[in-house]
């Protein structure tokens, strides 16, 4: 090599595309030539940044808007192509009809009318039959107990795409089925429902027996959502409501929105936090609409069907998995902070790590563990051990607590309070002691003391030594 080194050769050197002898020559040249050393530095820095550029993640863009525009664009083109596709013999019929018309009006003509001109006027596109509305797909998002689909208990319940005609039945459990963004229904125990019509235009569910809780996103113009319950038809436009139907009566309760209940005789509107009870054989228009009690409202809120965000059935089937939470007996569970009702149950979750909490006998949720879920058809299973049996040694432990408190130390804690003349104060604690006498937890759950004093009292209590004995968890109010 003679003279200076070309810049791109420094890039070759950086990428390891230069042989050893030439490399030595280039290195030596850079040591003696400040200009080339500077060029080398610049080229190396640029080459280094290639790696960073290569690993730049995709920026977030408005994915849904793009998807909508893509579909619009593609479908518009397809419709246009369809319009321009003329029927094979249409032009011939048009030309024939025009020829006859011309002959009738102007008498015999020496030459037939040119075919192209009238065709343009008469060959209107034939009215196309309206395309059938797109079929909807429903996916199970939560299930507990036995669930039957079309008369069988499917092993792949969470992978099933439920479409029109499917009949779903529950035993003692329940099943939630999502069919759109913020749209789902939850079939209660001992209930049967049929997806009579299930397309983008009309959703018609027929409940034969039992209870269904429905949440429906607002319908657009032309879309209908109906629930057939015996003689009554329940229609909504965007609401959350419950329909309970059996041989003797139908009850429709609305949590929010507006529900129209009709039969052959008339129609009543059921507004938010109201319900109507229609006895079998009675006309709906004669039944009063009454307000829901707070308990009934709470029950409706608790029964809200589970709907996953960003509804995309095709992606959900592949990118989600069922998580089975197995408990001995029925216990309320929460997954990632979301209350799901009584376990054992299965719930659809996205892949990743999920925290599961279960409620104890007192209704307090405690962390039961976490589980890693992969996007496989089998998902994951978490077994939650049975809750420890209720303790029987509370009296003994309570006695140990009271006798073990270091009273002089407790007095020092309370000294400032006593000097201020405050009496009748208390601390309520919750504590657990195991069979070995070790304190599992000690929490101050209520007090009227200042926090520093309460903390001091807690330390005194924490230093109480328990001996071997029965395990106990209890709440203790200590008057000071």
């Amino acid at each position, binding site marked *: 090599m003679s003279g200076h080194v*070309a*810049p791109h050769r420094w*890039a070759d050197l950086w990428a390891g595309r230069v042989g050893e002898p030439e490399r030595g020559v280039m290195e030596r040249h850079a040591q003696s030539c400040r200009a080339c050393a500077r060029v080398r530095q610049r080229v190396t820095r640029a080459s280094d*940044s290639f790696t960073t550029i*290569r690993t730049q993640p995709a920026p977030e*863009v408005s994915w849904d808007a793009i998807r909508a525009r893509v579909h619009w664009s593609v479908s518009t083109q397809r419709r246009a192509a369809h319009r321009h596709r003329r029927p094979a013999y249409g032009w011939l019929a048009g030309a024939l009809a025009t020829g006859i018309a011309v002959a009738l009006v102007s008498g015999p003509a020496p030459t037939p009318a040119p075919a192209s001109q009238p065709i343009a006027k008469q060959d209107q596109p034939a009215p196309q039959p309206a395309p059938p509305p797109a079929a909807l797909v429903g996916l199970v998002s939560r299930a507990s107990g036995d669930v039957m689909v079309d008369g069988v208990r499917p092993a792949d319940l969470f992978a099933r795409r439920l479409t029109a005609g499917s009949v779903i039945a529950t035993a003692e459990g329940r099943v939630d089925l999502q069919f759109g963004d913020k749209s789902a229904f939850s079939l209660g125990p001992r209930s049967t429902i049929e997806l009579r019509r299930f397309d983008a235009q009309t959703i018609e569910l027929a409940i034969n027996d039992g209870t269904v809780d429905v949440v429906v996103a607002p319908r657009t113009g032309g879309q209908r959502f109906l629930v057939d319950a015996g003689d009554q038809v329940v229609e909504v436009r965007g609401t959350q409501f419950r329909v309970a139907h059996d041989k003797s009566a139908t009850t429709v309760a609305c949590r929010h929105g507006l529900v129209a209940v009709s039969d052959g005789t008339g129609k009543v509107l059921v507004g938010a936090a109201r319900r109507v009870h229609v006895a079998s054989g009675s006309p709906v228009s004669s039944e009063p609409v009454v307000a829901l009690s707070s308990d009934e409202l709470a029950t409706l809120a608790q029964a809200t069907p589970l709907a996953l965000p960003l509804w995309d059935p095709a992606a959900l089937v592949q990118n989600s998995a069922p998580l089975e939470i197995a408990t001995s007996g029925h216990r309320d569970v929460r997954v990632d902070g979301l209350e799901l009702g009584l376990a054992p149950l299965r719930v659809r979750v996205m892949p990743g790590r999920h925290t599961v909490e279960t409620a104890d006998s007192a209704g307090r949720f405690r962390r039961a563990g976490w589980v890693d879920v992969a996007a496989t058809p089998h998902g994951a299973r978490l077994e939650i051990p049975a809750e420890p049996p209720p303790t029987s040694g509370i009296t003994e432990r309570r006695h140990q607590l009271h006798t073990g408190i270091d009273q002089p130390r407790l007095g020092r804690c309370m000294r400032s309070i006593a000097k201020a003349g405050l009496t009748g104060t208390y601390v309520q604690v919750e504590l657990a002691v195991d069979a070995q006498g070790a304190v599992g937890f000690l929490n101050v759950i209520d007090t009227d003391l200042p926090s520093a004093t309460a903390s001091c009292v807690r330390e005194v209590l924490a230093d109480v030594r328990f001996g071997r004995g029965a395990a106990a968890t209890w709440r203790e109010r200590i008057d000071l």
Partner: protein
Amino acid sequence: MAAQVMLGRVKRDTTGSLATLGPADEADLIARCKADDRAAHDELYHRFRRQAAGNLYRVLGDRTDLDDLVQEVFVIAFRGLERFRGDARLSTWLYRICVNVALGKIRTRKRRPAAIGVADLDATSADPSLTERPETPDRTLERRQEQERVYKALELLAPKKRIVLYLHEIEGLDLKEIAYLVDSNPVTVRTRLFYARREFYRIIAGEDPPDKPAAGEGGEP
């Protein structure tokens, strides 16, 4: 086939493995798309949208009109699926569309220089797995400036040279792979790449980009 074996690299999706699809699943997806199955279109879009956006973003160096470009890629893809013969992976084919869309965008910029926007590279950060320790602000600034310099130099190249250089130097593809993506032959790509590299590194080195063929290896820095 080169196109078949390449693009483990090309179909890289830095945000996840959604773009990874087995051959059987891919064939099924394509068949459903060809049958105008809306759900299949959605699935294809969902699987490859990030890959497409990432490719376009890295080629162009900024996110101006990125929404429109991603849309253009998928419109072309859905319209052209009928002609997709399956001689390359779907991800490769989509990458090829991305390259062509990006090329079109670069040409438009050349015609309208006022619209040039170089590298809003702080919009996203580098892959955190590449940095063992949190980057200092100085280092971040330095890295950003360096990337801007690279993209500014790329802007000065002719569109065809720029694409070839990008695919070779930054994406690390070989001549056959690049030839497939830019619908050319490897010899042409090699020639184009030779001139592109020489020009690019001269700009990086602080020299004026040569308007005429350079004098060979031993030019003055």
